[in-house]
Each structure stands twice: as C-alpha cells, then as structure tokens.
C-alpha cells in the first residue's frame, strides 16, 4: 500500500495530464505528481529516452528488467515484464534476467550480453573496470554507451523512489513505451 497518497489524473496540471494520457495512468506518475515542480522535467527525460531510435524496444527492456531485478524494484518488474514479453523476450530470457542469472544459455545476442554484464557490474559495484568499460565501448560507441547509461540511471534511481514509497503495482494500467 503506497505510503504517499496518489494524485488523481483529473487534478493534474496540463503538462502532467498530457504526459499521463500518452504514457499511462500509472501509480508511479500519480505519486510523483505530488511534486509537480520536478515531475515535468523528469517526464521530458522519460519521453526522450523512449522516443530515441538508438535502441530497440527489446534492448531497452533487457536493460530495464536487469536494473529492476538488481534493485529489487517490484513495481518496475510488475510493469516491465509484460512489456519485455511484448518486445520479444522469451520466458527463458526473462527468467534468466530477473531470477536465475542463467544468462549464458538463454540465447541473448552478443550486444545484449555486453549490456547485461555492464548493468550487473555497475549496479553491483557502482563502478566499471577498465576491461568492462572497453568491452561496452567497443560494442556501442560513445553516443550509444552514454545513452545506455542514461537509461540505466533513470531506472536505477527510480527504483529507490518506488521502493521507498512501497508503491503498489498497477492492476491494469500499463506504461506505453
């Protein structure tokens, strides 16, 4: 049960209401809407991350699920397991990311594996070794690697918010990526 009241969509100022109409009437937006001064800027970042053509929906969901799992973010997992399935991840792949860590035999592409390893090391140690950084840079190049870090950063930080608030997973509403 959310520790902070959820704000109704009808009470939102225009930019927040418009964002929620497009992205979903989600508990996470309704709780963040308690702080309208910072919501709108944050929403712009979310829009840019999901409107960018740099990564496929599938690649983004691989990264988001791994971050959500490592952060113990029940809310993020509740939203994104379904999206990941829709983006083409198999049940075996989803289980490997969010449960068994059995990443070697789940049929990920080489680039997906590099991304998964980067997320695992960075979320676990807060740093990257020179070798890990070099592998990620070789796979992605500077622009995409920095954008990948932005995506990790967004879901890593948001996990602390939804965990602290103990946010309930939405019963039906789903994020529109």
């Amino acid at each position: 049960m959310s520790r902070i009241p959820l704000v109704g969509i009808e009470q939102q100022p225009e930019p927040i209401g418009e964002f929620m109409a497009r992205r979903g009437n989600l508990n996470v937006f309704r709780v963040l809407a308690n702080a309208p001064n910072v919501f709108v800027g944050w929403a712009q970042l979310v829009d840019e991350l999901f409107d960018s053509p740099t990564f496929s929906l599938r690649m983004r969901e691989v990264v988001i699920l791994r971050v959500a799992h490592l952060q113990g973010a029940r809310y993020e997992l509740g939203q994104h397991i379904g999206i990941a399935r829709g983006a083409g991840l198999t049940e075996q792949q989803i289980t490997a990311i969010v449960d068994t860590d059995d990443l070697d035999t789940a049929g990920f592409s080489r680039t997906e594996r590099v991304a998964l390893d980067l997320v695992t090391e960075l979320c676990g140690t807060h740093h990257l070794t020179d070798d890990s950084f070099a592998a990620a840079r070789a796979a992605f190049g500077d622009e995409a690697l920095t954008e990948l870090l932005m995506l990790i950063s967004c879901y890593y930080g948001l996990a602390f918010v939804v965990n602290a608030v103990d946010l309930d997973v939405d019963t039906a509403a789903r994020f529109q990526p």
Partner: protein
Amino acid sequence: MTRIAYREPEDMTEQARELTFARGNLNVYRTLANAEKVFTGWMLAGQAALTSPVLPLRLRELVVLRTAYLMDCPYELGQHRDVARTAGVSSDEINAITSESDWRTDHFNSTELAVLQLTTELLTTRSVSDAVFDQAHRDLGSEATIEVLMVINRYSGLALMLNALDVDLDESARLPIPARKDRTDGLTS
C-alpha cells in the same frame, strides 16, 4: 581520466549548449552531452530539481552529499562539498555526512536526521522501514518527501554514470546555484 571525449559546445544543439553554459560548462555536462538524443531532457529534469523552492537548499545538499558518499562517487563529492558550503553546511558537518556514522552525532536537526536516516537506509538496503519513512514523511509532508526521493533518484543514477565514465573533477569550475522561484509556504528548516 575521463574515458570518453567531451562534447564541444559547438557540437551541441542550441538548447543543450545554453543549458550547459548556464550550469557552468562542467565536465559532467560535456561528457553526458554525448548522449545527444536524451541529454536535453536530462538537463531539463536537473533544472527543475535545482530551481524548485520546495526543499531548503541546505537539506537538498545534505541528501546529495550522503548519496554521493554511499554511491562512492568522487565527482559528486568534489562538486558538492563546495556547493554545500555555499548552502550553509559547515566543514565539520560535511566531514560528518561523508563518513560511515559520524552524521548521527549532534550536527543536524531532527528533520535533517530523519532525512539522512531515510537516505542511508534506502541506499544501503534498497528499501525503508515503516518507522523511518513515517518520521521523514511526517516532518516534510508528501511534496517535499517526493522531492527528497527525486534528489536521491537523480544523484544515485548520476553517480553510476560519472563512475562508469570516470569523469574528472573540474579543476575549479563549480555548479552555480540558480535562482529559485519565490515561495512563502516552504519548509523553514
């Protein structure tokens, strides 16, 4: 040594360049501008956080420093030791907050302690007990509690990026504290 090249201002969009210059043209921005498709949104999110009058500046800097310390982020610590001083945090207080447990001693008022307790528990265990959350929420109210959590959100995520890219601390340039909107019903401590 920063692991990727800095993006030069002339290679940024006009909006990205303006936002970068307004915030001191710091190494962090010149590095993250490499992600040109999402950098503007990230900067606008930061601007909103920096200009919102809801949290006392001092309280915000306490949360930033505690987050930077627990995330082991030398860049954030280097920048915000100085920003915090400008926001009225003493050197002794900065040393206390960037240590394992000295912050629990008598430097901080009860609201600050509740927020530091929440920050510490959240970053070390990834969740917060009812008692710790309730104390902070009672002191701050819902809006400011969400803003505290959004500061933790932003600076924990940024710490990962700065550490991954091993961004060098700027020699002397520091984040300018932007003007904040007037607010008469804000928290006083």
